[in-house]
């Protein structure tokens, strides 16, 4: 990944240049400069690898209560002027927006240091070396292996990216934030096609990633998951590893939109009107929050409007403490905006953290008489917004737990369940772990999780 990100000064200069071109009542400029390098591998070979960079400028113009935006990646004066003119023309042609809130003036931001040179320096050669380490570790002989590990099919993806972003308004607001993001994931499959294992890691720094450890973990899961047996679908106690929790719990975020709840079309709407704010909706061990300053998250300290993002605790000790208020809806309801919006499966720019307990996954297993251990999930989709009911499948390492021990590899399941209802059926909570940049999740033990059918997929 080449380090070609725009600096704060360069962004400020560019934003000023654009605002100076504008004749609108208000103008907002959002600039994202990005650089990214990735390496993809399968069957032990690197299949694709590439580097790219881009700078994207979004200009939002407001004129007589109307607003529109134009985005371009052309930064010569003529192209920028054309983009400014387009935004203004589109705004003038749009109907008046009754929900328009004025652009913000200067704000105070907390500085979040989220850039790491070890990610910026990860060029194609360094990425190839990391992939080699991972593959070598996955295929290394050791212990009593049931099959020759050198025959494992190993596939995965390494990405190192950096971005700098700014928001500037004609009313004097300027916000800037730079961050890096490194991630590596891999899947090992046994040559007979009956076993598959997955492992992943990521963070703002490359030090969050140990390629050899990931390779070993995926291989171990692949070997242990060979020849799965079918057990009856139904309701089971499950232990979700942190990666599976990270696939599942953020599915709640879209329902936290305050407006939808007030309008009676969310799981947090109350029958007869109003919302469930202040009500106990989950087990008391559940706390879910967004906080750009949290050292485990290092999120972006502002949203796309330039609104400073603070710590927002969505669920605290099982009680619904906050819903996501846009600036318009907050004004209408007389509350402080939270920024960041609800966002469906999308990520809050301030990050997302579910606090955990003290137990390791092994300790959760040891305390389980009968249950299912899940490595991660796949293809999660919404089934019913009224209950945040989702569907998805287990994948790459699903095991039966009996009397505190993993006893066998089992076939994958389709499940139909709700993160909201699951958090009310919590049996135990493990240690919280970093999953990827801006995301921290614990392992969870959940009672009566609904597996609705078997999947033949490995």
């Amino acid at each position, binding site marked *: 990944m080449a380090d070609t990100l725009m600096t704060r000064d360069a962004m400020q200069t560019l934003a000023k240049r654009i605002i100076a071109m504008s004749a609108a009542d208000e103008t907002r400029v959002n600039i994202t400069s990005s650089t*990214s390098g*990735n390496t*993809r591998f*399968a*069957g032990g*070979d*690197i299949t*694709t*690898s*590439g*580097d*790219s*960079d*881009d700078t994207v400028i979004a200009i939002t113009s407001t004129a007589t209560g109307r*607003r529109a935006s*134009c*985005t*371009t*990646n*052309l*930064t*010569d004066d*003529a*192209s920028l002027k054309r983009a400014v003119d387009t935004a203004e023309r*589109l*705004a003038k*042609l*749009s*109907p008046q927006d009754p929900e328009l809130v004025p652009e913000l003036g200067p704000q105070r931001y907390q500085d979040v240091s989220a850039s790491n040179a070890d990610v910026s320096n990860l060029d*194609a*050669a360094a*990425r*190839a070396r990391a992939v*080699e380490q991972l*593959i070598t570790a996955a295929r290394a002989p050791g212990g009593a292996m049931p099959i020759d590990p050198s025959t494992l099919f190993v*596939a995965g*993806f390494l990405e190192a990216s950096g971005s700098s972003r700014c928001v500037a308004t004609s009313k004097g607001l300027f916000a800037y934030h730079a961050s890096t993001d490194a991630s590596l994931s891999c*899947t090992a*499959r046994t040559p007979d096609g009956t076993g*598959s294992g997955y492992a992943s890691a990521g963070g703002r720094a490359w030090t969050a990633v140990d390629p050899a450890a990931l390779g070993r973990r995926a291989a171990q899961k692949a070997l242990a998951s060979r020849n799965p047996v079918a057990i009856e679908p139904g309701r089971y106690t499950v232990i979700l590893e942190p990666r599976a929790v990270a696939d599942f719990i953020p599915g709640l975020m879209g329902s936290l939109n305050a407006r939808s709840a007030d309008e*009676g*079309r969310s799981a947090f*709407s109350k029958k007869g009107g109003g919302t469930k704010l202040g009500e106990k909706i989950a087990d008391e061990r559940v706390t879910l929050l967004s906080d750009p300053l949290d050292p485990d998250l290092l999120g972006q300290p502002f949203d796309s409007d330039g609104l400073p993002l603070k710590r927002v605790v969505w669920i605290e000790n099982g009680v619904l403490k906050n819903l996501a208020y846009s600036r318009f809806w907050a004004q209408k309801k007389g509350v402080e905006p939270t920024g960041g919006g609800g966002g469906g499966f999308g990520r809050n720019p301030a990050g997302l953290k579910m606090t955990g307990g003290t137990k390791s996954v092994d300790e959760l297993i040891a305390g389980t008489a009968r249950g299912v251990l899940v490595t991660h999930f*796949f*293809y999660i*989709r919404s*089934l*019913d*917004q*009224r*209950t945040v009911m989702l569907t998805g*499948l287990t*994948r790459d390492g699903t095991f039966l737990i009996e009397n505190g021990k993993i006893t066998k590899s089992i076939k*994958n399941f*389709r499940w139909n369940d709700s993160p909201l209802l699951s958090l009310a059926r919590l049996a135990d909570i493990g240690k919280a772990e970093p999953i990827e940049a801006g995301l921290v999740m614990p392992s969870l033990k959940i009672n009566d999780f609904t597996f*609705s*059918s*078997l999947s*033949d*997929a490995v």
Partner: protein
Amino acid sequence: MTSRRDFLKTTALGAVAVAGTAQVARAGTLLHKMSNDTGDPVANEIALTAIQAAKDAGASYSDARVGRYRRQFIAARERQVLGVSDSESFGIGVRALVNGAWGFAATRDVSRAGAVRAAQQAVQVARAARTVTRTPVVLAPTPAVTGSWSTPVQQDPIDIPIEDKVALLLAANEAALKIPGVRFANSGLALLREVKTLATTDGTLVTQTFVRVGPSFTVTAIGDGDFQSYTEELAPRGSGWEYITSLDMPGNAPKWAALAAEKLTARSVEVGRYDLILDPTNLWLTIHESVGHPTELDRARGYEANYAGTSFVAPPEKMIGKLKYGSRLMNIQADRTQANSLSRCAWDDEGVAAESWPLIKDGIFHDYQTVRDQAPAIASLNGVGHSHGCSFADSWDSVQFQRMPNVSLLPGEHDTTIDDIIADTVNGIVIKNRGSWSIDQQRYNFQFSGQVFYEVKKGKITGMLKDVAYQARTPDFWNSMDMIGGKRSYWLGGTFSDGKGEPGQSSSVSHGCVPARFRQVNIINTARSV
């Protein structure tokens, strides 16, 4: 990275380059017009410069794509416009093959210097990949081509005045809100024009302009402690504005809104096995997931193992001509030439000519979807030898790889309609439009929902149901298909956002189909109480 200003300084040094400079400055202006038929000379020059630079740096093969993407989005809720946005993106992506390993680099610096730098970077990335890669890439041969192609449209959607677009959406919302119980209405338009120039060291130089339109419409009705939404299946198409007007969104909105209100009083489904009658507005997505993805050769070979998954249609030697995928009525065609379809093109992103070929014939698996570096692996099995032209990258800064062509269920021989199928069914459920969808990583177990569901008893529709989803195993499901519609009942659905690959890429693809009946499919109830 060099800015455009630096480029102007650099290229002012030579007369030829000066001409190039003027043309590059003009290239931005061209974004606002339809691409001319002869290709853009500036894009041609930059792309050719890139592949020459890659060759000079040691690439045995290289291709370069200069892409200009113009996109417009308009969204409205109830009586207001949520957002109007217009975007353009311009850049070049260069792919290089060095000693059998791929490298890719992309930049928005579309100058000769930027192209050369990206090409050299791609070669460097390929050399790094070579240190790990043991199996050298082999490309299937393809003839060199030159030319240009554009999506045939009567009216370029980008050029339609914004007022007209806004008025259309607000009129549709207004009409919907007149229906009792309907409280919310959301509508939108996604309008795209993409101009792409491809040069390869095999001698290909082509420019294509793609126009695509995607309308959307959803209403929500609020009842006593309940809410129900209805999304009309407005298929995105590779068409012009004339397609949008043909949908008559304001005229049809009351009918669509009434369905949301009716869902509030629909009966919750009883779980069990039913004969399922899938309208084309629902079946297209089931084809996409359970036939389109598993017949991708890169998935079958494990290239997607870490993300989108592999395929049950593997290994190829045990599948081609052998796998009984479905009943004899099942004929599935891959096609990148179909009019108004989303993956239609003249050439793919490797310069391979668009074609149409069978994936499944009379229920038996026949062939895969391929690109140049995958086709040789099955040449001895399918007897084809060339790529089927499925290479696609979603942006100038994405590397091209195997993406789905239009994959469609061909009509049956008889002139059967969905009404005929209903009349022939004793205990069934009709499902229309796409609802929730999910399928496992080898494309066996799937679960799909819809927007509206009707109970069928003894050949007649007896009422509306809700909370319905169907679960099945792909080969069981397709082998249970015992009745399909004829030509008259064929309809082309599709999506703008088919995700695959790492980093994730999105592609547009259409699926044509006829209504069909599937026997004794497992139906679940998706409702729960809080």
